[in-house]
């Protein structure tokens, strides 16, 4: 308990970073290379703060409206950028994030200009955030099992093939913007309620790098990656003092090394190991079956079934 109360800020940060990282990860899982999550976060945080301070709204109403607003902006952004893919989409979404920084810098008394907004006192507590994260993770688990997961993989790995199989690729991409907007907005709204301040500096390029670091090192394939990454990068500076001093340099190096050696992240390493073990086992099963069975037809159908099992387990 003592440990918990001394580190409450870090626990908060971890949970907020998890939400933000998931907001980057969902589009990536659908092959949409978008960094706009930072922008949604900014919209969520700033609009909550403005609604609460200027209009005297309660935390929950402000959070709801801010999240919906971020989601709507995300959806519109998805429509506008529908023609772009790959690098162009990545850079356009970075431009979107940076435009928002310019806008809040010029927002006058509403956004507080370069100083930002402070003194936003909400009624939201840590356990609300924890509950929200658990609900989000539970919902995301549904997208990582069975049919939906295979559709996600197909849309990412081969959009042409996916659409020829009857998967509506365009709708899935729009959906990814929608979910990303909701998660990013929610992260921002929780952040302003728990931290009470927001400034243009905190929604700049540094946050893009942090979110990316978390996802690249943790892994893109599953929410587990976002959780692992968030835990590593929020707690590392606390656990190792020298990391705090050299934070940016170490993070930069870690991102490069991860991009070179483990493009799938830590989760990717586990998946690969699991897959290798499984395909080895399946191969030996196929050999046994073919040795035991004399009948041609039966042999074929059995090994086909085994192979299918291997694919759907992946």
């Amino acid at each position, binding site marked *: 308990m003592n440990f918990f109360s001394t580190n409450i800020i870090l626990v908060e940060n971890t949970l907020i970073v998890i939400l933000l990282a998931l907001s980057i990860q969902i589009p990536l899982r659908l092959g949409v290379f978008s960094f706009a999550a930072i922008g949604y976060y900014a919209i969520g945080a700033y609009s909550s703060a403005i609604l609460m301070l200027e209009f005297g709204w309660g935390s929950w109403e402000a959070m709801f409206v801010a999240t919906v607003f971020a989601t709507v902006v995300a959806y519109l952004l998805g429509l506008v950028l529908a023609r772009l893919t790959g690098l162009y989409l990545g850079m*356009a979404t970075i431009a979107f994030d940076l435009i928002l920084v*310019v806008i809040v810098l010029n927002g006058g008394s509403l956004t507080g200009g370069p100083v930002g907004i402070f003194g936003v006192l909400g009624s939201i507590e840590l356990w609300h955030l924890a509950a929200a994260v658990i609900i989000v993770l539970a919902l995301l688990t549904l997208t990582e099992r069975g049919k939906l997961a295979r559709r996600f993989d197909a849309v990412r790995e081969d959009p042409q093939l996916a659409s020829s199989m009857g998967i509506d690729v365009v709708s899935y991409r729009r959906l990814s913007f929608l979910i990303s907007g909701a998660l990013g907005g929610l992260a921002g709204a929780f952040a302003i309620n728990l931290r009470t301040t927001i400034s243009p500096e905190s929604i700049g390029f540094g946050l893009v790098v942090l979110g990316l670091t978390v996802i690249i090192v943790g892994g893109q394939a599953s929410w587990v990656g976002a959780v692992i990454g968030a835990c590593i990068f929020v707690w590392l500076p606390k656990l190792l003092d020298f990391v705090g001093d050299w934070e*940016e340099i170490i993070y930069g190096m870690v991102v490069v090394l991860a991009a*070179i050696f483990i493009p799938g992240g830590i989760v990717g390493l586990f998946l690969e190991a699991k897959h290798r073990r499984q395909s080895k086992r399946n191969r030996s099963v196929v050999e046994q079956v073919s040795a035991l069975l004399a009948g041609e037809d039966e042999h074929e159908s059995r090994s086909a079934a085994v192979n299918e099992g291997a694919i759907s387990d992946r």
Partner: protein
Amino acid sequence: MIQDLLNALTLGSIYLLFALGMALVWGTIGILNFAHGSIFMFATFISYLIAERIVLPLPVILVIAAAVGAILSVAVQVLAFQPIMRRAKNQHSAELQILIGGIGIAAVPIAIAQRATLSNPFGLGNSSFQVQIYEIGDVRVSNIMIMILFAGLVLGGGLAWWIKVSRQGLALRAIGVNDEVASIMGINKQRLALATMALGGALAGLAGALLTVYLSAITPESGDALLIKAFAAIVLGGLGSIAGVIAGSLVLALSETLVLTHTSGTWVNAVSFGLIFLILVVRPQGIFGRKNVVRT
């Protein structure tokens, strides 16, 4: 009015020198080098460290900055981008991993320079070069402005000509169109990629030193903003066209100058970000670009 135009052209030449290297690398060997901005800054930073100790004439400083830029750029290519390309499972994922790796690399020199300068601006004032201002009518021109304009004109024009006429330029364009066929035709992609990265880095270093003398100081973070601006200039003109980069840089500088003279100045950065957005939505292939049809 003429003064504004001249300032815009100077700014445009700086953008051009910076964007040329980036566009050359991206348009031919397909690497969007996110570390280009921090190479620009760090090359200037190293020249600043040297110029602090020894008083040097400006041409020597420019050569040092260009050389450091080239070395850093080659190091990034050999240590990060080549391994990524070797290990990546396809072209598409290689592109994205290179962008991500570049973002990681970019953070390192910026953090080092920030620590060393305590985030203060640094300049190249300690040289035997003196900025002189000539007044012609009511237009003020400094000698460094003339140098920047000259460098932009010569290097921009020269590079466009070289790409079009020389055998290496042809080889580079061939890689840009289809690198597999190009290597069947006997083009050594690896070596050409290194040379292109070196050239891009040298241009970035040169732009950094010139800009620093012109503004008298830059901050460690200035590379990031420039990177986004160069990206705007490239997509504006259309990837794969040197004429496009020249046009894009000038249009960007002119519109920024226009905003700067008509507003309080805090909206200047929104110009480049807005332009990226507008162009990518309205005409993704840029003004000079060819249409590249990709379905889904």
